[in-house]
């Protein structure tokens, strides 16, 4: 599993230009810097309409199209096209907002995950449609104030819970799903580097507080992000897919090993309990019965990506 990797060891070279159009204290902009540094120059990016293109000063080439729901589709075409061109060495990556991932882009996300397309989907989650002025998204937490779920005499903000998208992506049994935070760069870089070494659909969900939309002081972005992790609102997790055939192989013990936990700096009480995920989707839907062996207990994905939202 991924090991934390310090920012200082990534070298001095920056892959973004110093100036950009992001707001002061923008976590998405910090994500862009960390991602471009961690993944290096051999990447091609996909951009859809979100705050991303506003701070899209990453040097690596990108395709931008105003197809808000098209991140999964367009990264599919990019990675397949580059593969056909004989350039499988290039990492295709998209830094996509929460709306383009969990709401309008969700069909494309689910479909690309199901097809196990070869790219890294990075979502910087600022928990609302911040580029259009802070409207509710399904990534907004319960009771949060947004411009379309205002707090008033008879309203307490957003009535619904946050959609747990890392869990939903993990249920597609993709090679790698992780949650990270902009406030824990070592953990994030470790996960990015780990993901880059894998093939297939990789999903990294990054908690990215937004001073403009949430109304806190821009100097506190990192602090807010850290509080979110430590309070269990944005736990740091990672899950590598097990070999789907594993449960059919030799020893049950072996099949039950390895697995989901990737603690990072997660407080122990948030670590998953149980015996790990023996066979990804096979587990979720119930493992095929094998004579003489009890099917493994199966809650780990839900445990793993449980959060206090």
């Amino acid at each position, binding site marked *: 599993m991924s090991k934390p990797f310090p920012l200082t060891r990534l070298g001095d070279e920056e892959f973004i230009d110093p100036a950009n159009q992001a707001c002061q204290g923008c976590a998405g902009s910090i994500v862009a810097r960390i991602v471009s540094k961690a993944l290096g120059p051999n990447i091609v990016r996909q951009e859809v309409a979100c705050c991303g293109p506003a701070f899209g000063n990453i040097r690596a080439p990108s395709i*931008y199209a105003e197809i808000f729901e098209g991140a999964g589709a*367009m990264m599919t075409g*990019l990675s397949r096209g*580059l593969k056909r061109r004989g350039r499988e060495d290039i990492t295709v990556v998209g830094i996509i907002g929460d709306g383009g991932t969990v709401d309008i882009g969700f069909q494309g996300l689910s479909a690309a995950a199901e097809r196990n397309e070869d790219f890294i989907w990075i979502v910087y989650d600022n928990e609302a449609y911040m580029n259009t002025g802070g409207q509710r998204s399904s990534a907004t937490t319960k009771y949060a104030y947004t411009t379309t779920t205002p707090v008033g005499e008879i309203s307490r903000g957003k009535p619904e819970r946050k959609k747990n998208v890392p869990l939903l992506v993990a249920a597609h049994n993709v090679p790698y799903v992780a949650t990270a935070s902009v406030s824990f760069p070592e953990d994030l870089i470790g996960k990015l580097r780990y993901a880059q070494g894998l093939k297939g659909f990789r999903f990294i969900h990054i908690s990215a507080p937004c001073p403009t939309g949430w109304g806190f002081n821009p100097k506190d972005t990192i602090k807010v992000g850290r509080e979110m992790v430590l309070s269990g609102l944005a736990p740091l997790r990672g899950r590598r897919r097990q070999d789907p055939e594993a449960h059919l192989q030799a020893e049950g013990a072996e099949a039950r090993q390895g697995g989901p936990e990737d603690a990072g700096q997660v407080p122990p009480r948030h670590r998953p309990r149980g015996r790990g995920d023996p066979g990804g989707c096979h587990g979720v839907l119930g493992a095929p019965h094998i004579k003489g062996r009890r099917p493994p207990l199966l809650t780990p994905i839900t445990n793993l990506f449980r959060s206090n939202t």
Partner: protein
Amino acid sequence: MEKWEVMVGNKAVAYAAKLARVKYIPSFPITPQTTIVQYLADMIANGELDAEYVTVEGELTAQASALTAAAAGVRSFTATSGPGLLYMHHPMHATSGARLPVVMAVIHRSVKGMQPDHSDMMAQRDTSWMMFECENSQELLDTGIMCFKIAEDERVRLPAIFAGDGYILSYTAEPVELPPQEEVDAFLPPYKPSIPLLPEQAEEMRMWMLRSWGFGRDPQDAWKVQHDAMEAAKTVIKEVNEEYGKWFSRRYGNGLVEEYMCDGAEAVIIAMGTIASTARVAIRNLQKRGEPVGLVKLKSFKPFPAEEFRRIGPQVKAMGVVDRNISCGTGGIVFGNVRDSMYDLEERPRTLQFHTGMRGKEVKVMDIERIAEKTLRAARGEKVAPLVEWV
């Protein structure tokens, strides 16, 4: 050597993609297009075609991923019908906006029901895609191959639709001549991408992005370059049609329009797609009876060959435009374009409007004969009514 095979229109479309050696095919089924992607799947399964075949989850993804695959540097092809085409609408703007030569087969299906009319394609009229109508399976195959050459031409670089009427073409078998692969390869060179997308081209790509965002330019330029490319395409279409004729001895008029038995005609009717095929029979019948009426088959709807109509206009006394579509509140879309293109002529023919074949209504030879006779009466100065007729 040439090979003949009896095949349905959808198979001819699949062969066009195969002969063009497409490399990226996003596939999603919709009647009556479905068998195109099935034939292509078979070709790939049997090792006859080497391409990325992605079974996507909807037409929007088909279009958006064809866009980026073309940007990544591979020849992209997809096919759809009716509501599927409507679902592609907004990524289609992005494809033409990025000047990516994606080619798409549209097998017409009405947006009201499953039977064919041109309402699905007409709804995409202003997406800056080139649009070509075909009247038989052979033309579908030939136009498909030509589309790649036209779309990928440096002067054009716009996506293209080649279309045929659902059911009437898609599931009707007729003999089709398959051009040899080597000759198609010689006619159609491999696709050269125009976007510098690779990591080692990062600086060029940034400049390309800035240009495409329109920095430092008139904001209207993004539209103007597409319009200019569309105008330039008229020349390219004629050239490619001529070159195709030299290679494979089949030409479709001048690539934009085809005049059929128009010599000495006092009146012409104008039709697209399979209605043009039916009209050929009607025109032959009428000319046997000594009626001087011809047919102008409109092959290229976008770019619209206004110059051709300005040339044909003064030669005749009346034009009857057969529209398999309607823009409610305005009328026939082809009719509007034809009439519009001739407005500045000193001597204009009379123009009559006919709606027929919508939602798959059967168009018979006698219907076209009636249309042609009415147009001829108008050409002879008789009073005809109504000027807009639903046949």
